[in-house]
Protein backbone atom coordinates (compact mmCIF):
# COMPACT_ATOMS: atom_id res chain seq x y z
CA UNK A 1 0.00 0.00 0.00
CA UNK A 2 1.35 3.39 -0.91
CA UNK A 3 1.77 6.35 1.37
CA UNK A 4 -0.80 8.29 -0.66
CA UNK A 5 -3.46 5.71 0.13
CA UNK A 6 -2.85 6.28 3.82
CA UNK A 7 -2.55 10.04 3.59
CA UNK A 8 -5.45 10.67 1.23
CA UNK A 9 -5.96 14.21 0.07
CA UNK A 10 -9.06 14.52 2.23
CA UNK A 11 -7.04 13.60 5.33
CA UNK A 12 -4.27 16.07 4.55
CA UNK A 13 -6.90 18.77 3.94
CA UNK A 14 -8.68 18.10 7.22
CA UNK A 15 -5.40 17.95 9.14
CA UNK A 16 -4.90 21.58 8.13
CA UNK A 17 -8.54 22.73 8.39
CA UNK A 18 -9.15 21.25 11.85
CA UNK A 19 -12.90 21.88 11.93
CA UNK A 20 -14.15 22.27 15.50
CA UNK A 21 -10.72 23.02 16.91
CA UNK A 22 -10.76 25.59 19.73
CA UNK A 23 -12.66 24.79 22.91
CA UNK A 24 -12.16 28.23 24.41
CA UNK A 25 -13.71 30.01 21.43
CA UNK A 26 -17.00 28.11 21.45
CA UNK A 27 -19.93 28.36 23.80
CA UNK A 28 -22.40 25.52 23.97
CA UNK A 29 -25.98 26.50 22.97
CA UNK A 30 -28.07 27.56 25.93
CA UNK A 31 -30.13 24.72 27.33
CA UNK A 32 -28.03 22.03 25.64
CA UNK A 33 -26.55 19.26 27.79
CA UNK A 34 -22.84 18.77 27.32
CA UNK A 35 -20.25 16.07 27.85
CA UNK A 36 -16.49 16.44 27.73
CA UNK A 37 -13.77 13.81 27.42
CA UNK A 38 -9.99 13.91 27.46
CA UNK A 39 -8.08 11.12 25.73
CA UNK A 40 -4.35 10.56 25.65
CA UNK A 41 -2.23 8.13 23.66
CA UNK A 42 0.80 7.55 25.89
CA UNK A 43 2.78 6.00 23.03
CA UNK A 44 3.03 9.15 20.93
CA UNK A 45 1.62 11.83 23.21
CA UNK A 46 -1.41 12.52 21.02
CA UNK A 47 -4.04 14.30 23.07
CA UNK A 48 -7.63 15.33 22.45
CA UNK A 49 -10.14 17.07 24.72
CA UNK A 50 -13.53 17.01 23.01
CA UNK A 51 -16.80 18.64 24.11
CA UNK A 52 -20.11 17.67 22.64
CA UNK A 53 -23.44 19.49 23.12
CA UNK A 54 -26.77 17.67 22.69
CA UNK A 55 -30.03 19.53 22.20
CA UNK A 56 -33.43 17.97 21.47
CA UNK A 57 -31.82 14.57 20.91
CA UNK A 58 -29.40 15.92 18.31
CA UNK A 59 -25.72 16.77 18.37
CA UNK A 60 -25.77 20.55 18.33
CA UNK A 61 -22.04 21.25 18.55
CA UNK A 62 -18.66 19.55 18.65
CA UNK A 63 -15.51 21.38 19.69
CA UNK A 64 -12.10 20.17 20.69
CA UNK A 65 -8.51 20.96 21.54
CA UNK A 66 -5.85 18.59 20.42
CA UNK A 67 -2.24 17.99 19.59
CA UNK A 68 -1.02 15.13 17.50
CA UNK A 69 -0.24 13.69 14.12
CA UNK A 70 -2.07 14.53 10.90
CA UNK A 71 -4.20 11.37 11.17
CA UNK A 72 -5.45 12.21 14.66
CA UNK A 73 -6.10 15.88 13.87
CA UNK A 74 -7.82 15.14 10.56
CA UNK A 75 -9.93 12.48 12.24
CA UNK A 76 -11.20 14.95 14.86
CA UNK A 77 -11.97 17.46 12.11
CA UNK A 78 -13.92 14.94 10.03
CA UNK A 79 -15.80 13.76 13.10
CA UNK A 80 -16.87 17.30 13.91
CA UNK A 81 -18.31 17.92 10.46
CA UNK A 82 -20.02 14.56 10.39
CA UNK A 83 -21.49 14.58 13.89
CA UNK A 84 -23.10 17.98 14.00
CA UNK A 85 -26.83 17.62 13.23
CA UNK A 86 -26.94 13.86 13.81
CA UNK A 87 -29.22 12.27 16.36
CA UNK A 88 -27.55 10.61 19.32
CA UNK A 89 -28.46 7.20 17.91
CA UNK A 90 -27.05 8.08 14.48
CA UNK A 91 -23.74 9.20 15.92
CA UNK A 92 -23.46 6.02 17.98
CA UNK A 93 -24.03 4.01 14.81
CA UNK A 94 -21.38 5.95 12.91
CA UNK A 95 -18.84 5.58 15.75
CA UNK A 96 -19.48 1.83 15.93
CA UNK A 97 -19.06 1.48 12.19
CA UNK A 98 -15.86 3.57 12.16
CA UNK A 99 -14.38 1.47 14.97
CA UNK A 100 -15.27 -1.76 13.18
CA UNK A 101 -13.54 -0.64 9.99
CA UNK A 102 -10.46 0.66 11.81
CA UNK A 103 -10.00 -2.53 13.82
CA UNK A 104 -10.52 -4.85 10.85
CA UNK A 105 -6.89 -4.68 9.61
CA UNK A 106 -8.28 -3.73 6.23
CA UNK A 107 -10.78 -6.61 5.95
CA UNK A 108 -13.93 -4.49 6.30
CA UNK A 109 -14.53 -1.68 3.83
CA UNK A 110 -15.96 1.64 4.93
CA UNK A 111 -19.50 2.50 3.86
CA UNK A 112 -19.20 5.97 2.33
CA UNK A 113 -22.93 6.61 2.67
CA UNK A 114 -22.70 6.12 6.42
CA UNK A 115 -19.20 7.44 7.13
CA UNK A 116 -18.88 10.24 4.57
CA UNK A 117 -15.38 11.77 4.65
CA UNK A 118 -14.48 9.40 7.48
CA UNK A 119 -14.40 6.59 4.90
CA UNK A 120 -11.04 8.04 3.85
CA UNK A 121 -9.52 6.58 7.01
CA UNK A 122 -10.12 3.05 5.73
CA UNK A 123 -6.44 2.84 4.73
CA UNK A 124 -5.33 3.52 8.30
CA UNK A 125 -6.70 0.11 9.31
CA UNK A 126 -3.76 -1.51 7.55
CA UNK A 127 -1.29 0.36 9.77
CA UNK A 128 -1.80 -1.16 13.23
CA UNK A 129 0.41 1.50 14.84
CA UNK A 130 -1.82 4.28 13.51
CA UNK A 131 -5.30 2.95 14.36
CA UNK A 132 -5.23 4.66 17.75
CA UNK A 133 -4.37 7.96 16.06
CA UNK A 134 -7.54 7.78 14.00
CA UNK A 135 -9.66 6.54 16.90
CA UNK A 136 -8.65 8.95 19.65
CA UNK A 137 -11.22 11.70 18.97
CA UNK A 138 -13.95 9.12 18.26
CA UNK A 139 -13.35 7.49 21.64
CA UNK A 140 -13.58 10.95 23.20
CA UNK A 141 -16.82 11.65 21.28
CA UNK A 142 -18.38 8.38 22.43
CA UNK A 143 -17.50 9.16 26.04
CA UNK A 144 -18.79 12.74 25.78
CA UNK A 145 -21.95 11.56 24.06
CA UNK A 146 -22.68 9.11 26.87
CA UNK A 147 -22.33 11.94 29.36
CA UNK A 148 -24.48 14.39 27.43
CA UNK A 149 -27.28 12.15 26.22
Amino acid sequence: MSLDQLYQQIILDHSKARHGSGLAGTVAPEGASTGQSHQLNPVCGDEVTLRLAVEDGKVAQVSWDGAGCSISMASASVLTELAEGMTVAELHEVIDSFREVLRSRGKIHADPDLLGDAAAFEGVARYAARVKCAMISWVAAEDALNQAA
Partner: protein
Amino acid sequence: MALVSTPASLEQALPATLDNAEVLRIRNDFPVLDQLVNGRPLVYLDSGATSQNPLSVIEAEQEFYEQRNAAVHRGAHHLAVEATEAFEDARQTVADFIGADYSETIWTSNATEGLNLISYTLSTAGLWAAQGRGDAGLADLALKPGDEIVVTEMEHHANLIPWQELAFRTGATLRYIPIDDAGSLRMDQAGDIIGSRTKVLAFTHASNVLGTINPVRELVALGRAVGALVVLDACQSAPHMVLDVKKLDVDFAVFSGHKMLAPTGIGVLYGKQELLDILPPFLTGGSMITTVTMERAEYLPAPQRFEAGTQRISQAVALAAAANYLTETGLDRIHRWETELGGRMVTGLESIPGIRVLGPAAGGERIGLAAFDVEGVHAHDVGQFLDSRGIAVRVGHHCAQPLHRRLGLTATTRASAYLYNTTDDVDQFLDAVAGVRAYFRA
Protein backbone atom coordinates in the same frame (compact mmCIF):
# COMPACT_ATOMS: atom_id res chain seq x y z
CA MET B 1 53.99 -22.90 0.11
CA ALA B 2 55.35 -21.85 3.44
CA LEU B 3 53.18 -22.99 6.30
CA VAL B 4 54.38 -20.31 8.64
CA SER B 5 51.75 -18.31 10.49
CA THR B 6 52.31 -14.62 10.95
CA PRO B 7 52.85 -13.58 14.58
CA ALA B 8 50.07 -11.38 15.86
CA SER B 9 52.44 -8.48 16.41
CA LEU B 10 53.36 -8.47 12.73
CA GLU B 11 49.81 -8.57 11.46
CA GLN B 12 48.70 -5.43 9.78
CA ALA B 13 47.11 -3.15 12.36
CA LEU B 14 43.43 -2.52 11.78
CA PRO B 15 42.56 0.96 10.53
CA ALA B 16 41.56 3.38 13.29
CA THR B 17 37.97 3.47 12.15
CA LEU B 18 35.52 1.48 10.08
CA ASP B 19 34.82 2.65 6.57
CA ASN B 20 32.02 1.97 4.09
CA ALA B 21 33.85 -0.95 2.51
CA GLU B 22 34.30 -2.69 5.86
CA VAL B 23 30.71 -1.88 6.88
CA LEU B 24 29.46 -3.54 3.70
CA ARG B 25 31.37 -6.69 4.74
CA ILE B 26 29.97 -6.41 8.27
CA ARG B 27 26.45 -6.21 6.85
CA ASN B 28 26.86 -9.71 5.43
CA ASP B 29 26.83 -10.95 9.04
CA PHE B 30 23.36 -9.46 9.62
CA PRO B 31 20.77 -11.32 7.54
CA VAL B 32 17.85 -9.17 8.65
CA LEU B 33 19.36 -6.11 6.99
CA ASP B 34 19.16 -7.73 3.57
CA GLN B 35 15.49 -7.14 2.76
CA LEU B 36 13.16 -4.78 0.97
CA VAL B 37 10.71 -2.67 2.94
CA ASN B 38 7.97 -1.01 0.92
CA GLY B 39 9.93 -1.84 -2.19
CA ARG B 40 13.14 -0.19 -1.01
CA PRO B 41 16.25 -1.70 0.59
CA LEU B 42 15.85 -1.49 4.36
CA VAL B 43 17.77 1.35 5.99
CA TYR B 44 17.79 0.45 9.66
CA LEU B 45 18.38 3.52 11.83
CA ASP B 46 16.70 2.39 15.04
CA SER B 47 19.53 0.60 16.83
CA GLY B 48 19.15 2.96 19.79
CA ALA B 49 15.88 1.15 20.46
CA THR B 50 17.03 -2.34 19.55
CA SER B 51 19.96 -3.57 17.50
CA GLN B 52 20.14 -6.42 15.00
CA ASN B 53 21.90 -9.75 15.55
CA PRO B 54 24.91 -11.06 13.64
CA LEU B 55 24.96 -14.71 12.60
CA SER B 56 27.54 -15.55 15.28
CA VAL B 57 25.04 -14.49 17.96
CA ILE B 58 22.11 -16.29 16.39
CA GLU B 59 24.27 -19.40 15.95
CA ALA B 60 25.56 -19.27 19.52
CA GLU B 61 22.02 -19.43 20.83
CA GLN B 62 21.04 -22.13 18.35
CA GLU B 63 24.15 -24.18 19.14
CA PHE B 64 23.34 -23.98 22.84
CA TYR B 65 19.86 -25.42 22.28
CA GLU B 66 21.09 -28.02 19.80
CA GLN B 67 23.93 -29.32 21.93
CA ARG B 68 24.03 -28.13 25.53
CA ASN B 69 20.61 -27.16 26.83
CA ALA B 70 20.08 -27.97 30.52
CA ALA B 71 19.42 -26.20 33.80
CA VAL B 72 22.57 -24.67 35.27
CA HIS B 73 24.06 -25.04 38.75
CA ARG B 74 22.15 -28.24 39.48
CA GLY B 75 22.19 -31.82 38.29
CA ALA B 76 25.31 -33.94 37.85
CA HIS B 77 24.67 -35.03 34.30
CA HIS B 78 26.78 -34.20 31.30
CA LEU B 79 24.49 -31.60 29.74
CA ALA B 80 24.04 -29.80 33.07
CA VAL B 81 27.82 -29.45 33.34
CA GLU B 82 28.13 -28.27 29.74
CA ALA B 83 25.32 -25.72 30.17
CA THR B 84 26.78 -24.42 33.42
CA GLU B 85 30.20 -24.00 31.82
CA ALA B 86 28.73 -22.14 28.86
CA PHE B 87 26.71 -19.90 31.19
CA GLU B 88 29.61 -19.05 33.47
CA ASP B 89 32.10 -18.67 30.59
CA ALA B 90 29.66 -16.16 29.15
CA ARG B 91 29.73 -14.26 32.43
CA GLN B 92 33.53 -14.07 32.34
CA THR B 93 33.45 -12.85 28.73
CA VAL B 94 30.97 -10.10 29.54
CA ALA B 95 32.84 -9.18 32.75
CA ASP B 96 36.03 -8.76 30.66
CA PHE B 97 34.04 -6.72 28.14
CA ILE B 98 33.30 -4.04 30.78
CA GLY B 99 36.43 -4.38 32.90
CA ALA B 100 34.59 -6.00 35.81
CA ASP B 101 35.34 -9.06 37.91
CA TYR B 102 33.44 -12.25 37.30
CA SER B 103 31.47 -12.19 40.56
CA GLU B 104 30.54 -8.54 40.08
CA THR B 105 28.66 -9.30 36.87
CA ILE B 106 24.99 -10.10 37.44
CA TRP B 107 22.58 -11.26 34.75
CA THR B 108 19.31 -9.36 34.54
CA SER B 109 16.48 -9.28 32.00
CA ASN B 110 17.53 -5.83 30.83
CA ALA B 111 18.80 -2.50 32.14
CA THR B 112 15.36 -1.64 33.54
CA GLU B 113 15.45 -4.70 35.76
CA GLY B 114 18.99 -3.85 36.82
CA LEU B 115 17.96 -0.37 37.95
CA ASN B 116 14.92 -1.73 39.75
CA LEU B 117 17.15 -4.32 41.41
CA ILE B 118 19.40 -1.59 42.81
CA SER B 119 16.53 0.59 43.98
CA TYR B 120 14.66 -2.27 45.65
CA THR B 121 17.71 -3.73 47.34
CA LEU B 122 18.52 -0.29 48.75
CA SER B 123 15.09 0.06 50.36
CA THR B 124 15.28 -3.51 51.66
CA ALA B 125 18.68 -2.58 53.11
CA GLY B 126 16.85 -0.07 55.27
CA LEU B 127 14.43 -2.75 56.51
CA TRP B 128 17.27 -5.14 57.29
CA ALA B 129 19.32 -2.49 59.07
CA ALA B 130 16.33 -1.45 61.17
CA GLN B 131 15.98 -5.03 62.43
CA GLY B 132 19.68 -5.63 62.89
CA ARG B 133 19.76 -8.17 60.09
CA GLY B 134 22.75 -8.63 57.82
CA ASP B 135 25.99 -6.66 57.70
CA ALA B 136 26.41 -3.59 59.91
CA GLY B 137 27.35 -1.63 56.78
CA LEU B 138 23.77 -1.78 55.55
CA ALA B 139 22.82 1.07 57.89
CA ASP B 140 25.05 3.41 55.84
CA LEU B 141 23.38 2.38 52.59
CA ALA B 142 19.80 2.78 53.85
CA LEU B 143 17.84 5.88 52.81
CA LYS B 144 15.68 7.88 55.17
CA PRO B 145 13.70 11.14 55.13
CA GLY B 146 16.11 14.02 54.56
CA ASP B 147 18.37 11.95 52.32
CA GLU B 148 18.52 12.79 48.63
CA ILE B 149 18.67 10.88 45.37
CA VAL B 150 20.09 12.84 42.44
CA VAL B 151 19.36 12.08 38.77
CA THR B 152 19.50 14.29 35.67
CA GLU B 153 16.85 15.95 33.54
CA MET B 154 17.85 13.86 30.52
CA GLU B 155 17.18 10.42 32.00
CA HIS B 156 15.30 7.62 30.28
CA HIS B 157 12.23 6.67 32.34
CA ALA B 158 14.09 3.49 33.37
CA ASN B 159 16.63 5.59 35.25
CA LEU B 160 14.04 7.94 36.69
CA ILE B 161 10.94 6.08 37.86
CA PRO B 162 12.75 3.45 40.01
CA TRP B 163 14.34 6.39 41.89
CA GLN B 164 11.00 8.19 42.24
CA GLU B 165 9.62 5.01 43.79
CA LEU B 166 12.66 4.50 46.02
CA ALA B 167 12.17 8.06 47.28
CA PHE B 168 8.51 7.26 47.94
CA ARG B 169 9.33 4.07 49.85
CA THR B 170 12.03 5.63 51.99
CA GLY B 171 10.92 9.24 52.41
CA ALA B 172 14.04 10.47 50.63
CA THR B 173 13.87 13.42 48.21
CA LEU B 174 14.52 13.13 44.48
CA ARG B 175 16.48 15.97 42.88
CA TYR B 176 17.85 16.44 39.40
CA ILE B 177 20.66 18.18 37.58
CA PRO B 178 19.07 20.34 34.83
CA ILE B 179 20.28 20.60 31.25
CA ASP B 180 21.04 23.68 29.20
CA ASP B 181 19.38 24.43 25.87
CA ALA B 182 22.16 22.65 23.99
CA GLY B 183 21.44 19.44 25.89
CA SER B 184 24.44 19.42 28.23
CA LEU B 185 24.19 18.96 31.97
CA ARG B 186 24.46 22.17 33.98
CA MET B 187 27.71 21.11 35.63
CA ASP B 188 27.93 24.59 37.18
CA GLN B 189 24.91 23.59 39.27
CA ALA B 190 25.80 19.93 39.82
CA GLY B 191 28.17 20.75 42.67
CA ASP B 192 25.36 22.46 44.60
CA ILE B 193 22.80 19.75 43.93
CA ILE B 194 25.10 16.87 44.86
CA GLY B 195 25.75 17.46 48.56
CA SER B 196 26.08 15.91 51.98
CA ARG B 197 22.48 14.63 51.83
CA THR B 198 23.03 12.80 48.54
CA LYS B 199 22.92 9.04 49.04
CA VAL B 200 22.51 8.00 45.40
CA LEU B 201 23.68 9.68 42.20
CA ALA B 202 22.24 8.02 39.07
CA PHE B 203 22.85 9.28 35.55
CA THR B 204 23.14 8.14 31.97
CA HIS B 205 26.52 7.78 30.28
CA ALA B 206 25.09 8.94 26.94
CA SER B 207 21.63 10.37 26.28
CA ASN B 208 19.29 8.26 24.14
CA VAL B 209 17.64 11.45 22.87
CA LEU B 210 20.24 14.22 22.87
CA GLY B 211 23.24 12.09 21.96
CA THR B 212 25.22 13.93 24.62
CA ILE B 213 28.08 12.07 26.32
CA ASN B 214 28.05 13.04 29.99
CA PRO B 215 31.22 13.91 31.97
CA VAL B 216 31.28 10.68 33.97
CA ARG B 217 34.57 11.37 35.75
CA GLU B 218 33.47 14.77 37.03
CA LEU B 219 30.13 13.42 38.19
CA VAL B 220 31.76 10.43 39.90
CA ALA B 221 34.18 12.79 41.67
CA LEU B 222 31.25 14.86 42.93
CA GLY B 223 29.49 11.72 44.14
CA ARG B 224 32.63 10.32 45.78
CA ALA B 225 33.28 13.59 47.61
CA VAL B 226 29.96 13.24 49.45
CA GLY B 227 29.97 9.45 49.87
CA ALA B 228 27.07 8.82 47.48
CA LEU B 229 26.51 5.58 45.58
CA VAL B 230 27.09 6.23 41.90
CA VAL B 231 24.87 4.41 39.36
CA LEU B 232 25.65 4.55 35.64
CA ASP B 233 23.07 3.84 32.92
CA ALA B 234 25.33 2.46 30.20
CA CYS B 235 22.59 1.47 27.73
CA GLN B 236 23.78 3.85 25.02
CA SER B 237 27.50 3.53 25.79
CA ALA B 238 28.31 -0.16 26.41
CA PRO B 239 27.24 -1.15 22.86
CA HIS B 240 29.12 1.69 21.18
CA MET B 241 32.35 2.53 23.01
CA VAL B 242 34.85 1.01 25.39
CA LEU B 243 33.28 0.85 28.84
CA ASP B 244 35.59 0.23 31.78
CA VAL B 245 33.52 0.29 34.95
CA LYS B 246 36.56 0.09 37.24
CA LYS B 247 38.37 2.91 35.51
CA LEU B 248 35.22 5.01 35.73
CA ASP B 249 34.96 3.99 39.40
CA VAL B 250 31.16 3.75 39.42
CA ASP B 251 29.44 1.63 42.09
CA PHE B 252 26.86 0.19 39.73
CA ALA B 253 26.36 0.10 35.98
CA VAL B 254 23.58 -1.40 33.87
CA PHE B 255 23.01 -2.15 30.19
CA SER B 256 20.78 -4.28 27.95
CA GLY B 257 21.89 -7.02 25.58
CA HIS B 258 19.41 -6.25 22.82
CA LYS B 259 20.99 -2.86 22.19
CA MET B 260 24.41 -4.52 21.63
CA LEU B 261 23.71 -7.20 19.02
CA ALA B 262 22.32 -9.76 21.51
CA PRO B 263 18.78 -11.09 21.90
CA THR B 264 16.11 -9.53 24.10
CA GLY B 265 15.66 -10.84 27.63
CA ILE B 266 19.25 -10.47 28.82
CA GLY B 267 21.02 -7.57 30.47
CA VAL B 268 23.82 -6.92 32.92
CA LEU B 269 24.18 -5.30 36.29
CA TYR B 270 27.68 -4.49 37.43
CA GLY B 271 28.17 -3.77 41.13
CA LYS B 272 31.22 -3.40 43.32
CA GLN B 273 31.91 -6.65 45.14
CA GLU B 274 31.80 -5.18 48.63
CA LEU B 275 28.34 -3.75 47.95
CA LEU B 276 26.90 -6.81 46.26
CA ASP B 277 28.07 -9.07 49.06
CA ILE B 278 26.16 -7.23 51.78
CA LEU B 279 23.09 -5.92 49.96
CA PRO B 280 19.88 -7.92 50.49
CA PRO B 281 18.64 -9.89 47.48
CA PHE B 282 16.03 -8.47 45.10
CA LEU B 283 14.22 -11.61 43.93
CA THR B 284 14.36 -14.67 46.18
CA GLY B 285 13.84 -18.37 45.53
CA GLY B 286 15.84 -21.20 44.02
CA SER B 287 19.55 -21.12 43.16
CA MET B 288 20.53 -18.20 45.38
CA ILE B 289 20.58 -19.76 48.86
CA THR B 290 22.90 -21.69 51.15
CA THR B 291 20.61 -23.02 53.89
CA VAL B 292 16.83 -22.89 53.99
CA THR B 293 14.61 -23.79 56.94
CA MET B 294 10.87 -23.37 57.21
CA GLU B 295 11.52 -20.08 58.96
CA ARG B 296 14.29 -18.38 56.98
CA ALA B 297 17.08 -18.61 54.45
CA GLU B 298 20.74 -17.68 54.14
CA TYR B 299 21.93 -16.33 50.83
CA LEU B 300 24.89 -17.00 48.56
CA PRO B 301 27.30 -14.20 47.75
CA ALA B 302 27.12 -12.43 44.37
CA PRO B 303 26.52 -13.21 41.58
CA GLN B 304 24.15 -16.06 42.60
CA ARG B 305 22.73 -13.88 45.38
CA PHE B 306 20.95 -11.82 42.71
CA GLU B 307 20.02 -14.61 40.31
CA ALA B 308 16.95 -16.33 41.71
CA GLY B 309 15.27 -19.03 39.66
CA THR B 310 16.26 -20.60 36.37
CA GLN B 311 18.31 -18.10 34.41
CA ARG B 312 18.29 -16.88 30.81
CA ILE B 313 21.04 -19.25 29.83
CA SER B 314 20.95 -19.20 26.05
CA GLN B 315 20.59 -15.42 26.05
CA ALA B 316 23.67 -15.10 28.28
CA VAL B 317 25.63 -17.28 25.87
CA ALA B 318 24.40 -15.15 22.98
CA LEU B 319 25.31 -11.93 24.79
CA ALA B 320 28.86 -13.21 25.22
CA ALA B 321 28.97 -13.94 21.48
CA ALA B 322 27.81 -10.36 20.86
CA ALA B 323 30.51 -8.98 23.17
CA ASN B 324 33.10 -11.01 21.27
CA TYR B 325 31.82 -9.71 17.95
CA LEU B 326 32.14 -6.11 19.16
CA THR B 327 35.56 -6.69 20.70
CA GLU B 328 36.88 -8.35 17.53
CA THR B 329 35.57 -5.51 15.39
CA GLY B 330 37.04 -3.01 17.85
CA LEU B 331 34.90 -0.72 19.99
CA ASP B 332 37.19 2.27 19.47
CA ARG B 333 36.83 1.81 15.72
CA ILE B 334 33.06 1.41 16.04
CA HIS B 335 32.85 4.54 18.19
CA ARG B 336 34.85 6.62 15.71
CA TRP B 337 32.69 5.44 12.82
CA GLU B 338 29.45 6.14 14.66
CA THR B 339 30.72 9.57 15.69
CA GLU B 340 31.25 10.28 12.00
CA LEU B 341 27.75 9.04 11.14
CA GLY B 342 26.20 11.07 13.98
CA GLY B 343 28.04 14.17 12.82
CA ARG B 344 26.90 13.58 9.24
CA MET B 345 23.30 13.30 10.44
CA VAL B 346 23.41 16.54 12.41
CA THR B 347 25.20 18.53 9.72
CA GLY B 348 22.72 17.28 7.14
CA LEU B 349 19.65 17.84 9.31
CA GLU B 350 20.70 21.35 10.24
CA SER B 351 20.88 22.28 6.55
CA ILE B 352 17.22 21.29 5.98
CA PRO B 353 14.75 24.18 6.57
CA GLY B 354 12.32 23.65 9.44
CA ILE B 355 14.39 21.00 11.22
CA ARG B 356 15.42 21.48 14.84
CA VAL B 357 18.02 19.00 16.07
CA LEU B 358 18.04 18.27 19.79
CA GLY B 359 21.30 18.19 21.68
CA PRO B 360 24.77 19.34 20.62
CA ALA B 361 25.02 21.31 17.36
CA ALA B 362 27.15 20.09 14.46
CA GLY B 363 30.75 19.82 15.57
CA GLY B 364 29.80 19.10 19.17
CA GLU B 365 30.56 15.71 20.71
CA ARG B 366 27.71 13.23 20.30
CA ILE B 367 27.11 9.52 19.83
CA GLY B 368 25.79 8.17 16.54
CA LEU B 369 22.21 9.32 16.88
CA ALA B 370 20.13 12.43 16.31
CA ALA B 371 16.63 13.27 17.48
CA PHE B 372 14.85 16.15 15.77
CA ASP B 373 11.63 18.07 15.38
CA VAL B 374 10.13 18.85 11.99
CA GLU B 375 8.24 22.13 12.07
CA GLY B 376 4.57 21.62 11.31
CA VAL B 377 4.78 17.83 11.00
CA HIS B 378 4.18 15.40 13.85
CA ALA B 379 6.88 12.80 14.50
CA HIS B 380 4.46 9.97 13.77
CA ASP B 381 3.90 11.33 10.28
CA VAL B 382 7.65 11.79 9.78
CA GLY B 383 8.22 8.17 10.77
CA GLN B 384 5.48 6.96 8.43
CA PHE B 385 6.93 8.94 5.53
CA LEU B 386 10.41 7.53 6.15
CA ASP B 387 9.01 3.99 6.48
CA SER B 388 7.42 4.34 3.05
CA ARG B 389 11.00 4.69 1.79
CA GLY B 390 12.22 1.70 3.75
CA ILE B 391 13.85 3.80 6.46
CA ALA B 392 13.30 2.65 10.06
CA VAL B 393 13.52 5.33 12.76
CA ARG B 394 12.00 5.79 16.20
CA VAL B 395 9.21 8.29 16.85
CA GLY B 396 7.67 9.48 20.11
CA HIS B 397 9.14 10.63 23.39
CA HIS B 398 11.76 7.86 23.49
CA CYS B 399 10.84 7.11 27.13
CA ALA B 400 12.00 10.58 28.13
CA GLN B 401 8.87 12.66 28.70
CA PRO B 402 10.40 15.11 31.21
CA LEU B 403 13.25 15.83 28.79
CA HIS B 404 10.84 16.48 25.92
CA ARG B 405 8.74 18.73 28.15
CA ARG B 406 11.88 20.66 29.07
CA LEU B 407 12.55 21.20 25.36
CA GLY B 408 8.93 22.23 24.71
CA LEU B 409 8.10 19.13 22.64
CA THR B 410 5.91 16.07 23.04
CA ALA B 411 7.37 13.82 20.36
CA THR B 412 10.42 13.76 18.11
CA THR B 413 11.94 11.56 15.43
CA ARG B 414 15.22 9.79 16.18
CA ALA B 415 17.70 8.15 13.84
CA SER B 416 20.34 6.01 15.53
CA ALA B 417 23.23 4.28 13.80
CA TYR B 418 25.36 1.25 14.57
CA LEU B 419 28.38 -0.50 13.16
CA TYR B 420 26.36 -1.84 10.21
CA ASN B 421 25.28 1.57 8.87
CA THR B 422 26.97 3.24 5.93
CA THR B 423 27.22 6.92 5.05
CA ASP B 424 24.81 6.05 2.23
CA ASP B 425 22.23 5.02 4.86
CA VAL B 426 22.57 8.44 6.46
CA ASP B 427 22.36 10.22 3.10
CA GLN B 428 19.19 8.36 2.12
CA PHE B 429 17.70 9.27 5.48
CA LEU B 430 18.61 12.93 5.00
CA ASP B 431 17.22 12.93 1.47
CA ALA B 432 13.92 11.54 2.76
CA VAL B 433 13.72 14.01 5.66
CA ALA B 434 14.20 16.85 3.18
CA GLY B 435 10.94 15.80 1.48
CA VAL B 436 8.79 15.53 4.60
CA ARG B 437 7.51 19.08 4.96
CA ALA B 438 6.56 19.38 1.31
CA TYR B 439 4.57 16.14 1.44
CA PHE B 440 2.62 17.27 4.50
CA ARG B 441 2.44 20.85 3.17
CA ALA B 442 4.00 22.24 6.32
